[in-house]
C-alpha cells in the first residue's frame, strides 16, 4: 500500500511537468500578447511592462524560470491585476469553489445513494422507473439551463432565494443545487447498477439463507460493495464539478476560482490561467489517488500495485 502511494506520488512529477510544459508553450506561442488588447499603450510603456514580467527574455529562459517558480507554487503576479499574486488569487478563489463543490458532492452522495438503493431494491417497480427517469432527466439537463430555470422559479417568481452573490447560507442553496443535480442523478444510477450486480451474488443468497434480516443483508453486506462504482466515480465527478463550477459561478456571481479562470481566459491573463490549470490538475491527481486508496480499502479483492 505504501509502495503504491509512493509510486503514484512519483508519477505526479512527470505528469505535472508535461502539463506545465504543454500549458506554457501553448500560452506563449499563441498569437497576441496580454498587453496587445489594451489600446493606445505607448511603445515604451509596453516594453517596460514586458520587461517587468520577463517577457522580453528568450523563450527558453522564460520556460526555465517558469518551472523553477512553479515548483514553489509561485506563478508570479497576475497580468491583469499586477498588484495581486496568482497564488493569492488561487487561495482565495479555491476556498469559495471548494465550499461550493464540497457541498455539491455531499448532496450528490447523500441523495444519490439512497435513491439508487431504493430503486435497486424495488427493481422494475413504478418507483424504480420513476427514479431512473428522473435521474436520466437530471443527467440530461445541463447545469447552465437548470441554473437560470431555478433562478426563474425560486428567485424571480417565488422570491424565496437570492438569485446571485455568495453572501449568507440561503445564497448557497441555488448554486449548490444547480451544480449537484446531475451528480445526484448519476450517483443514483451508479448505485442502482452496483446494487443490482451485488444483490445477484452468492454471498447475498447465503446471507439471506442463514436468516439474516433483510436490513442487514442490504446495508451491511450489499451496500459496501454496491457503492464501489460510486467511489471510483468520485474522481471524474470532482473533475466534472470543477467544470460545472465554471458556469455555476458565472450564473450566480460566485467569487470562486472558476470565475477567475474564465475572466482570466478572456483577459489573456497568462500567469493566472496557467496557475489555475496547474493547480487544478495537481488537485485532481491527488484526489484520484485518494479515491484509489479508498477503493482498495473498501474492496479487499483489489490489490494495489
Amino acid at each position, binding site marked *: 500500500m505504501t509502495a503504491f502511494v509512493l509510486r503514484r506520488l512519483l508519477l505526479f512529477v*512527470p*505528469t505535472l511537468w*508535461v*502539463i506545465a510544459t*504543454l*500549458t506554457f508553450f*501553448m*500560452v506563449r506561442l*499563441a*498569437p497576441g500578447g496580454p498587453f496587445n488588447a489594451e489600446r493606445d499603450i505607448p511603445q515604451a510603456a509596453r516594453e517596460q511592462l514586458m520587461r517587468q514580467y520577463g517577457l522580453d527574455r528568450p523563450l527558453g529562459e522564460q520556460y526555465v524560470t517558469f518551472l523553477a517558480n512553479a515548483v514553489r507554487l509561485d506563478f508570479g503576479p497576475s497580468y491583469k491585476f499586477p498588484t495581486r499574486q496568482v497564488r493569492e488569487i488561487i487561495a482565495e478563489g479555491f476556498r469559495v469553489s471548494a465550499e461550493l463543490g464540497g457541498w455539491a458532492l455531499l448532496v450528490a452522495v447523500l441523495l444519490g445513494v439512497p435513491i439508487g438503493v431504493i430503486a435497486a431494491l424495488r427493481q422494475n417497480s413504478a418507483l424504480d422507473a420513476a427514479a431512473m427517469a428522473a435521474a*436520466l*432527466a437530471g*443527467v*440530461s*439537463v*445541463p447545469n*447552465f*439551463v437548470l*441554473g*437560470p*430555470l431555478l*433562478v*426563474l422559479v425560486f428567485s*424571480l417568481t417565488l422570491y424565496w432565494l437570492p438569485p446571485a452573490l455568495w453572501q449568507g447560507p440561503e445564497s448557497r442553496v441555488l448554486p449548490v443545487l444547480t451544480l449537484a443535480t446531475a451528480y445526484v442523478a*448519476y450517483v443514483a*444510477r*451508479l448505485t*442502482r*447498477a*452496483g446494487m*443490482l*450486480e451485488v444483490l445477484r451474488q452468492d454471498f447475498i443468497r447465503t446471507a439471506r439463507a442463514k436468516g439474516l434480516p433483510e436490513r442487514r443483508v442490504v446495508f451491511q453486506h450489499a451496500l459496501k460493495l454496491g457503492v464501489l*462504482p460510486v467511489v471510483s466515480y468520485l474522481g471524474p465527478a470532482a*473533475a466534472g464539478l*470543477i*467544470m460545472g463550477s*465554471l*458556469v455555476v459561478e*458565472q*450564473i450566480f456571481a460566485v467569487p470562486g476560482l472558476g470565475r477567475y*479562470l*474564465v475572466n482570466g*481566459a*478572456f483577459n*489573456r491573463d497568462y500567469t493566472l*490561467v496557467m496557475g489555475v*490549470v496547474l493547480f*487544478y*490538475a495537481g488537485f*485532481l*491527481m491527488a484526489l*484520484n489517488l485518494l479515491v484509489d486508496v479508498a477503493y482498495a480499502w473498501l474492496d479487499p479483492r483489489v490489490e494495489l500495485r
Partner: protein
Amino acid sequence: MSALPLARPAVEPDTAPGPPASLWSDAWRRLRRNRVAVPAAFFLAFVSMLALFAPWLSGLADPAAQDLRLGATWPSVAHWFGTDELGRDAFARVVYGGRISLLVGLVGTLVSLVIGVSWGAVAGYAGGKLDELMMRVVDVLYALPNIFLVILLLVFFSRSLLMLFVALGLVQWLTMARIVRGQVLSLKQQTFVEAARALGATDPSIVFRHIVPNTLGPVIVYTTLTVPAVILQEAFLSFLGLGVQPPAASWGTLVSDGARVLALFPWLVLFPGLALSLTLLAFNFLGDGLRDALDPQDRRESA
C-alpha cells in the same frame, strides 16, 4: 480417435433450429423492442431533418430577420417560441441553433473517433513499451480536466468553428482509446488473428481489417454517448462566451443570451434549453438502448 476429441461441439451446428442469428440481427431485434430507444431515435431523426433542411423550409422564418418594432413577444401562433428583443423568430433561431450544435457534435465526435480508435488499436496491438508509452500519454491527458485544454486552445488560438471542432475532438478521444485498447488486447489473442497472421496478413491489415471491425459494438455505443457529450461541451463553452461566435448561434449561445434577459423574457431560455436537453436525453436513451442491444451481458457500465 481424433487428436482432440473433447473439442467437438456437443450439438452439431446444422441441427440448430432456424437460421443462425448474427450478432447484428440479434442486436437489431433487441433494439427494436426497446421502448425508449426507438422513440429517441425517431426524435433524433426528426431534429436532424429539421436542422438539415432548415434553409429550404418555406414556413420557417429567417432567423436573422429583425423586427425592432415587434420586439420580444410571448410565444404565439405566428411565432411558436416567441420572439427575442430584436424581434427575431425564436423558433427559427432554435432550429438554426440546432444546425450548429448537431454539426459540432458530429464533427467533434468524428475527430475523437478517428484518433481514439487508431490510438487504442495501435497501443493494444503493439503491446510492450509502445503500449506503455501511449497509455501513459492518455493518463497524463486524463489528469488535465479536458475543458481547460479546450478553453486554452480556444482563447489563445482562435475562436473559429474549425478550432472548436478540433479542440472538442482532441479532448474526447481518451476514453475511446482505452475502450478500444482493452478490446484489442483480448481480441489479438484469439485464433482468427492467428489465422490471419498465418495467411500472411501484415500488422496494419490485421489491426484495421480484422481486429478493429470486431470492436465495433462497444465503439458504436461509446460514439453514441460521445455525441451528446460534445454537444454539451460546445453549449457549455458557448454559454461562457468561448464557443460559437455571433452572428452564428448554437443552442448554448441561445441559452446564454436568454439567461441575460431571464427576468423579462423567460421563454428565450426555456425553448433552446428544452431543445438541448431533449436532444441530449434522446442520445443518452439511444446509447443505453444500443448498449443493451449490442452487449447484453455487460451490466457493469449500465448505470
